[in-house]
């Protein structure tokens, strides 16, 4: 059974450039793997930024290439952090991230498995992210987090992509017919790169 949230579209392979990185969840403990999130995110960012022009280094403004690099690095890192954090430890499904480059937009797709219990709380958060005003939700989340002494999850990653980066998010949740019930989650992030320059 597959449920889609938001405007989820599958990527069909055409002429667009793409990169995919896969991780086997059982190979190394989460703590040791954490550094890999940043490394993978930076790799995706460095690779794709070369398609965009670097402007005058003297300028006070950020150039298009650096802006794209910073943006891709932030979003990819947040998606990987979430995937590693919420991946269902009883599952051996690989975690993967794919990044597609189109002339006017980028698409990030991250897939990981989650437990049915995790899926319930995620569905509630998805409804908030899709239907509530992102700025009010962002400020409300910060104020609520500040009152907590212990916080497992800030709830800011996906929200900041919408509120600060203007990204469009959608999700695919697939229930796999296995002995141990398992959900496969794909998070899709679409980011306009209009004005970033020529590809």
């Amino acid at each position, binding site marked *: 059974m597959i449920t889609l949230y938001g405007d989820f579209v599958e990527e069909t392979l055409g002429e667009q450039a793409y990169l995919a990185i896969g991780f086997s969840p059982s190979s190394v403990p989460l703590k040791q793997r954490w550094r890999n999130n940043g490394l993978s995110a930076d790799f995706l960012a460095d690779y794709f930024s070369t398609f965009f022009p670097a402007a005058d280094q003297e300028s006070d403004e950020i150039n298009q290439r650096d*802006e794209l690099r*910073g943006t891709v*690095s932030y979003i990819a890192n947040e998606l990987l952090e979430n995937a590693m954090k919420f991946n269902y430890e009883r599952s051996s499904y690989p975690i993967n991230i794919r990044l597609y480059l189109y002339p006017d937009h980028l698409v990030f797709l991250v897939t990981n498995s989650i437990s049915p219990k995790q899926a319930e709380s995620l569905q509630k958060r998805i409804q908030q992210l899709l239907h509530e005003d992102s700025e009010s939700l962002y400020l409300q989340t910060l*104020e609520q*987090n500040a009152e907590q002494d212990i916080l497992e999850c800030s709830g800011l990653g996906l929200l900041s992509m919408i509120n*600060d980066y203007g990204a469009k998010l959608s999700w695919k949740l697939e229930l796999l017919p296995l002995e141990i019930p398992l959900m496969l989650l794909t998070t899709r992030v679409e980011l306009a790169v209009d004005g970033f320059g020529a590809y």
Partner: protein
Amino acid sequence: MEIKTDSYRVIQADENSTIKLEGALRLSGMEEYAPIVDLFNQVVDSSVEKITLDLRELEFLNSSGINVLSKFVIKIRQKQNIQMIVQGSQKVAWQGKSLKNLQRLMPTLQLKWE
């Protein structure tokens, strides 16, 4: 006081009223951010009238780190008598996108761009 690792550095200067963050902060969750949170809390609880947070050389910050900075700003706001200055760089992508939120949390906060 200074916290230093391979990827980032936190430095206190000007009789502890200036805190400078450098490098890339992508720690996993609040537990790993605890030493930085402790440093922030000490500054808030000391009797300084003005706090400057220099982020110009902080190239990356994950959302857990954004949460830590936001909580610091909310604590300063709650004190009511501390002036807050945040120095940012337009050349660092996350700062151009996300720093404005700190001002939304504390409207008297001065955001100085370089």
